């Protein structure tokens, strides 16, 4: 018996669509597909009720470390761990200007968020505006505004002249230490985007704003195909 494709089941779960007669017949007879659909429906049903993930404040880690008596220096262990968390890349990436040679780059720090108009606080102050210049052999340019708001910092990125091409554009904040980077999310090359960034990030050295062209390959790492870039003031 050929089971129903997971993507079809996901579509049924998401759109609450009535299956066509063939699929309906199969679902009546097949426990496995019915079970699979029920699980997907369970996830689909709570999708509007997911909480925003929050990270504990820094002192929690300090207390844990001192309570268990870790011999590794505090900051180092965690900083190292953070840069090795999700989406880490260990490939080398040649950075222009401020970072000459880079050995390994880590992407981590969950919790950045693409903002929509609804989320934006009205009382924002623009802390910095920088130009994003094309890298050698690339076309396009843009700007990035660092905005301080009561809810935290935001980075507003606008681009122009980026080529229309397969794949998608992604905004990254690269640390000037050349060792760490975080992905802020997908950029619409025409309308731009605004991304929430943790308040302490720029102070920690995440100041290089980088827009890369990413292939649709499912690889979360930086493609090494940077198109435009600029550095926020310290």
């Amino acid at each position, binding site marked *: 018996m050929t089971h129903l494709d997971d993507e079809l089941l996901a579509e049924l779960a998401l759109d609450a669509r009535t299956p066509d007669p063939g699929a309906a017949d199969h679902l009546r007879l097949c426990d496995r597909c019915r079970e699979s659909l029920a699980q997907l429906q369970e996830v689909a049903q709570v*999708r509007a009720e*997911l909480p925003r993930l929050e990270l504990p404040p820094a002192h929690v880690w300090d207390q844990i470390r001192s309570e268990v008596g*870790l011999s590794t220096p505090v900051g180092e*262990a965690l900083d190292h761990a953070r840069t090795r968390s999700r989406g880490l890349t260990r490939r*080398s990436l040649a950075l222009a200007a401020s970072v000459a040679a880079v050995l390994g780059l880590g992407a981590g720090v969950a919790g950045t968020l693409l903002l929509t108009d609804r989320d934006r606080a009205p009382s924002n102050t623009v802390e910095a505006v920088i130009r994003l210049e094309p890298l050698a052999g690339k076309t396009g340019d843009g700007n990035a505004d660092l905005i301080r708001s009561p809810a935290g910092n935001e980075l507003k990125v606008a681009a122009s002249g980026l080529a229309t091409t397969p794949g*998608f554009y992604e905004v990254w904040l690269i640390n000037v230490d050349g060792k760490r980077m975080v992905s802020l*999310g997908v950029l*619409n090359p025409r309308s731009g985007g605004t991304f929430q960034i943790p308040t302490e990030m720029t102070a920690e050295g995440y100041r290089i704003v980088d827009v890369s062209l990413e292939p649709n390959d499912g690889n979360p790492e930086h493609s090494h195909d940077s198109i435009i870039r600029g550095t926020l003031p310290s």
Partner: protein
Amino acid sequence: MTSAEADAPSPADIAKGFADGDEQSLADAYARWSGLVFTLALRSLQDRPDAEDVTQQVFVSAWRGRATFDPANGSLGAWLTGITRHRIADRLAARSRDQRNSSAAIGLVDAGSPPAHVDDHTVDRVVLADELARLEDPRRTILRLAFYEDQTYPQIAETLDLPLGTVKSHVRRGLIQLRDRLKEVQG
């Protein structure tokens, strides 16, 4: 850090290091799961200092009790989630004891205690939020817009300048990924 270093530790790598008592793996585990633990505690207890205490207790007791963790017998994420549930339940029970004592002290009839257990639905939602934050882009951004912002597929396609079919396909595959991760954590 050098380019010779291995890729990011997978949850399985962290779990193995943890069981072996490798200190870096405690930091790795904290970096990977502290958001999950803290958010779960915060949602259940509705109190920030209590949630911070619970987060601290979970990682301290997990580290001290690492000999009882068997990587062959389930994931570290699921094990930490289990410890978190116990710690939250302890905190809720202590709260209701305090409440009973103070009611008794002032001569009030015990009006019944709130349940001292962690709601499964809360656990599932926090686990899913944690997994969503770990999806690769553009899937992560697409699912955020679909789930948190309640945008329609055509709106997302416009926001991100991606083809509509690509958006739909990412939402479907993302849902499957989330389901798979939920099954793993639920064991």
